[in-house]
């Protein structure tokens, strides 16, 4: 049941995937997600503010992420910031998407190998 529901989200929109991937390591706030994505993609993917928060809003509505009540140590905390984390459904969806992408990469690799052999 949950399996089918998780698969109904695939393929994930790329912004959604990047946000969820950033949250895979733990709670994170919006600006942190933006920085994380920038670092991970060496500056190639930038989640612009309205895109980022619009996506976060829709991810919450889709029950893939949720606001986290856990906050960092008071010294690092900024009261204005909200922290988000993956829901259990969100984890399932992220896993399913990663699996799908891996299969895709596998398929690309084997096709390439064939092409190279023939050439």
């Amino acid at each position, binding site marked *: 049941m949950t399996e089918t529901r998780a698969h109904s989200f695939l393929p994930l929109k790329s912004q959604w995937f990047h946000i969820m991937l950033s949250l895979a390591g733990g709670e994170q706030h919006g*600006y942190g997600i*933006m920085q994380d994505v920038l670092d991970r993609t060496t500056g190639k993917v930038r989640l612009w503010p*309205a*895109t980022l928060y619009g996506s976060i809003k829709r991810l919450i509505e889709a029950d893939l992420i949720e606001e986290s009540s856990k906050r960092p140590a008071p010294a690092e905390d900024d009261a204005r910031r*909200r922290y988000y984390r993956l829901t259990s459904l969100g984890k399932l969806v992220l896993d399913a998407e990663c699996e799908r992408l891996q299969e895709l990469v596998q398929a690309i690799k084997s096709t390439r190998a064939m092409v190279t052999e023939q050439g």
Partner: protein
Amino acid sequence: MKIAWLLYKRLAEAFPHEFKLAFGDEMMQAGEDSIADLAKRHGIAGVARLIADLALHLPLEYLSEMRRDMKYAVRALAKSPGYALVGVASMGLGIGLTTNVHNQGWVLLTRTLSGVANPNQLVTAETPTSYPYIERYRDQKDLFTGVAAVQNGVEFNVGLPGQSGKPDRVYGQLVSPDYFSVLGMEPQHGRPLSADLDKTGNVPDVVISDRYWRSRFNSDPDIIGQTIRLNGQNATVVGVTPSKFDGALTVNPVELFVPTTVPATVAPELGNDALHNRGLKSFQFLMRLAPGVTIDSAESALDGITRRLDKDDPLAPPQFDKAKRLVLMGAGTRVQIPREIRPKLLGFYIALMAIVTAIACLNLATMALARGTNRRRELAIRLGVGASRFRLIRQMVTEGVLLSLLGGAAGFALAWALAAITAHTRLPAGSPLNPDLPIDWRTALFAFFLAIVSGIGFSVLPALHATKTDIAPALKQGADLQLFGHKRFGLRNVAMSAQVAGSLLLLLVTGFLVLGLVKNSSIQTNFNPKTMAFLFVDPVRDGYTPEKAQAFFERLPDRLRRDPAITSFALAAQPPYLPGDDDNFHLTVDDPHQSSPVQKDFSQRTVGAGFFSVLNQPLVAGREFDERDQRLDRNPTGLPGAAATRLPLVLNQKAARALFGGVRSVVASMDPNLTLFNVQTLSEYLELIRASMSSALRTFGGIGLFGLILSAVGLAGVTAYAVAQRSKEIGIRMALGARKSQVLALVLREGATLVAVGTVIGFLSSVALAKALSAITTAFADAFSLGIGDPRLLIGAPLLLAGLALLACYIPAQRAMAIDPLKALRME
């Protein structure tokens, strides 16, 4: 950089409230943090991208909010199906009728001629004039790029050479050869009439209408160059007009366009030297104004010319007035309306549409107000947990828009049904074009916009009202918040009285029109209309010379007299009772109430021996015409006029229908080639006239009825709500010993006051409106003067409305009497 940051802030602040509540601060900070970095790394392009991202997402966020509001509205309406049903029904009626008025009235009046280039440049005069005058107007090359002469309603017998059988009787226009070039119209087949080729003496060229080509010639592709017989003479078809073109300057369908260069044998109207006769004012002109020339300047120039021409004409009657001799009006529309009347007529339709829509909105507004009060507790809770007032208002307005969109769909279906009924109404032959006004996407668009505007219109005020709430007491008391709610000028009472007033206004004004139309068209005869028949015979158009026709009409009475079934008969140039074809003229007469002689309009009908006795119509004084008068050289009316060329027979017989055969054989025995046409009894004809008015009656009658139903529904709803709201109070009163009749009076009193106030306002404003409308056009004046004096309407309509309204109050009042004091007090 500073500007970019300012822009970013503005855009971020413009996001929907809910979005800002969740992400506003963070988005602001994210922007602040990244803007400098972006500028450093990517320069202007990076900053622009940042701003563009916000600008693109702003409408998206609002759309997603709207979708949520819509979902919420669907749920809210599903929860109160009664409200939704009544709302959709009344909105549907309102939008449907408004759309119908828009389609039948407004569009009909404003539609331009199809297939015509720049129709707004075309003008014509309000009254016909003579051909020589038009020739003089044609000289004003600086005012016009083209002037064509047109004579309307010319009948032709059309046959095909070598084909025996009855020829067709169709209406055509006699037009000067430049008619099509003035219109800027290219035929769909063949060529237009041309001045060079249509020289007198050749076989005349004619252009036929697309409709006639389809119906009579079966869309024959080889029609061009084909010879047809026009009134017994050969003519060549040279062109077919584009489809949907029905002729300019007329609302009657035109099948043939015949050049004025044809001989009088083809068109008897051209006899009497019509093209040079200044006294024969039977032509209209069609002018195309030169660029930059206004209709006013053209009018004053033409007026001056007409004045000089009149002065030079020894035969023209002396004119004393200083009024304009010539008044121009637009000629580019299907229906030509004098300029003076046009804005008022269109204003009338706008007002009618506005009133109908306003009443539907008022009705829903009163219901929404009641509903809003009922939802106070829910609204207060939502306000308490942080929903913005704007959000709540937006949601309630969305609910209203959804309701009125559903109503709009129902209304569109209603308008469609009404149009379908109108399209199936058969109109009498030769009567104005059955307005070919199909319901199309433009109609749908109109209904859609009307629905949106109405939806917002009726729900904004109630939403403002409902959300203007002190949270604490509303939470505590819920709907019973204001028990002392007898605010005399409360929004709800004002809306209710306005609704009653508006409904009565509609009922009375449309009632005046309906009664007036019915009375105008009802014909009083001194005999049974089934026993009278009309038969038309037109020997001149069957190829007779005027002398031969005269001889025929002298012999005809004797032959008819031999038929024992015919009790009486008469000849006339125009049939009695039927509209049109009168020769109108002015005479200068002495009026005892005026110091100088005044011009009066008369209409002239050429009638033969025994005409009035056939109609069983005694004369006030003098004697009836007899056969001594019936010679064309002794014109019986003693007035200038054309010789009667078309003489219908008027027969009064015991069973008209059965005896048409007898008359046919009499005429056939005199000449088998003569055509009898339009053979009908009077009652059949009257039936057709009635049918042609049914569309207007249905529209106006429907609107009147609509007001009645809506105000009753509205009153019932509001009273029911008031009763529900006061059930606790009523319970206390009953527990303290109030009688049921006292409770009934208490509830009815409030409704009765509203009804009374509304009735008085509605009555006064409708009489004022009717008076104002009568002052605008004679068309309304005729209808109103007949309708306004009718006591049935003046007394009946307010009584009917008030009665219905009180009944609508009575039903919920009865429910109030059934309140169990114990239960009512135990509530909460």
